[in-house]
């Protein structure tokens, strides 16, 4: 009975993480579409939410990577508590970076939290540092934003070469129309890569509980549907915050730049999802936006924001790992039953409420490219 309660808490925590992931990332997905006026804000947010939901059903490769290739969980209560510790580590790091305005990656936080928690719970042998962490997370995490940066830059240069001498009116109209498609693809890409990480973690918990066999790995349909719903609802909820603040916070880029950035970001994320690389969608989209801005005018890029992305990129994995490890140890102080997760969940909810109250007075949406 105790382990069933822990499973329920872990699944609920994972879905809350998924919701906050969507909430946090709405800005990345819809800001470009809204700032170029390709779609009205309300429609852009609703459209992104629907395609986030649909995207979660496209593939299960990333979920398989998260569940099988990064850490190994034993089917017992220690394994369940390790998954819980990892999730709380990720949520806590996301809250801290959100409070201080660092554009961190929810995906790296999730993987970092899992690694730290499983490391102290199950030992170093249960963490696949080389093929898993380095080969499937760290190297793709470095390649993807760089690739998106280059593609975004090359794409906008090619577009300016093709349409640069034409009257801006029809061209802008054409690219705004194109952004309806490229923005939709970006939302689809975000849904598929990010929702799958939550699916992977929930499946890990089910393996630890013995509900899913590690030898016959599969992601249950209810996990896919619930993760898709949570990220879509988070995207929708996050969108309303953007609509309220966008007037003063989102800087404009031209429609061709928006189209190039969205095309580059979605191409990299979808290609990586297909082979099972759990990317940071935040960093990849930012890379594409910065690339399309830098190719036009280097001074258009807010290099301070770009620098913060790099700092957050370096810090997120180790810090989330430390918090995940500490969370597991604190939870274990109360034994291997449900008492520890209940107490830690209550504390993290209280902490979230305090941080949200203090931060919401200064909410904003950081973007990487200045007005052109």
């Amino acid at each position: 009975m105790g382990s069933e309660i822990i499973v329920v808490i872990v699944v609920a925590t994972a879905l809350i993480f998924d919701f906050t992931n969507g909430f946090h990332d709405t800005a990345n997905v819809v800001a470009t579409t809204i700032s170029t006026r390709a779609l009205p804000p309300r429609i852009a947010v609703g459209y992104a939410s629907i395609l986030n939901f649909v995207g979660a059903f496209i593939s299960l490769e990333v979920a398989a990577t998260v569940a099988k290739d990064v850490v190994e969980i034993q089917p017992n209560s220690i394994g369940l508590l390790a998954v819980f510790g990892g999730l709380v580590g990720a949520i806590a790091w996301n809250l801290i970076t959100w409070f201080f305005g660092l554009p961190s990656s929810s995906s790296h936080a999730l993987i970092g939290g899992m690694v730290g928690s499983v490391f102290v719970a199950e030992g170093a042998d249960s963490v696949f540092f080389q093929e898993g962490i380095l080969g499937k997370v760290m190297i793709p995490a470095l390649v993807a934003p760089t690739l998106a940066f280059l593609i975004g830059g090359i794409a906008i240069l090619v577009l300016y070469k093709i349409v640069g001498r034409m009257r801006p009116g029809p061209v802008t109209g054409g690219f705004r129309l194109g952004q309806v498609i490229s923005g939709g693809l970006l939302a689809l890409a975000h849904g598929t890569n990010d929702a799958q990480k939550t699916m992977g973690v929930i499946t890990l918990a089910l393996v630890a509980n013995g509900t899913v066999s590690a030898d016959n790995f599969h992601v249950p349909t209810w996990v896919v549907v619930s993760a898709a719903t949570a990220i879509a609802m988070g995207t929708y909820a996050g969108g309303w915050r953007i609509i309220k603040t966008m007037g003063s916070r989102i800087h404009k880029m031209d429609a061709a730049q928006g189209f190039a950035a969205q095309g580059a970001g979605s191409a990299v994320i979808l290609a990586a999802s297909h082979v099972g690389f759990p990317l940071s969608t935040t960093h990849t989209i930012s890379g594409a936006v910065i690339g399309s801005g830098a190719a036009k005018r280097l001074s258009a890029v807010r290099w301070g924001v770009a620098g913060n992305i790099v700092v957050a990129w370096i810090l997120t994995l180790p810090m989330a790992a430390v918090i995940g490890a500490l969370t597991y140890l604190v939870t274990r102080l109360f034994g291997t039953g449900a008492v520890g997760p209940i107490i830690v969940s209550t504390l993290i909810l209280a902490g979230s409420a305090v941080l949200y109250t203090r931060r919401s007075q200064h909410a904003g949406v950081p973007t990487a490219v200045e007005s052109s």
Partner: protein
Amino acid sequence: MIGAIVDTHALLQVIWVSILAGVAVTAAYGLAILGATRAVEFGRDRRVGEATVYAVIGIVGLVVFLAAIVFGIVILTGD
């Protein structure tokens, strides 16, 4: 060394597919806009030959753009 750790085949696949999709497909849409806009302008000036050529460029660009997206989604959902 790196080859033993990272799945280089998968990584290279991500790189070339992303470049092809991100640049070539974007360029195809750029050609669609170029073709459509110029076709309208030449049509307005009653220069039927040029208008037809640009209309074909626009249609081909749009077809390539849409076909590439549909093809990509079919590949993604196929496994």
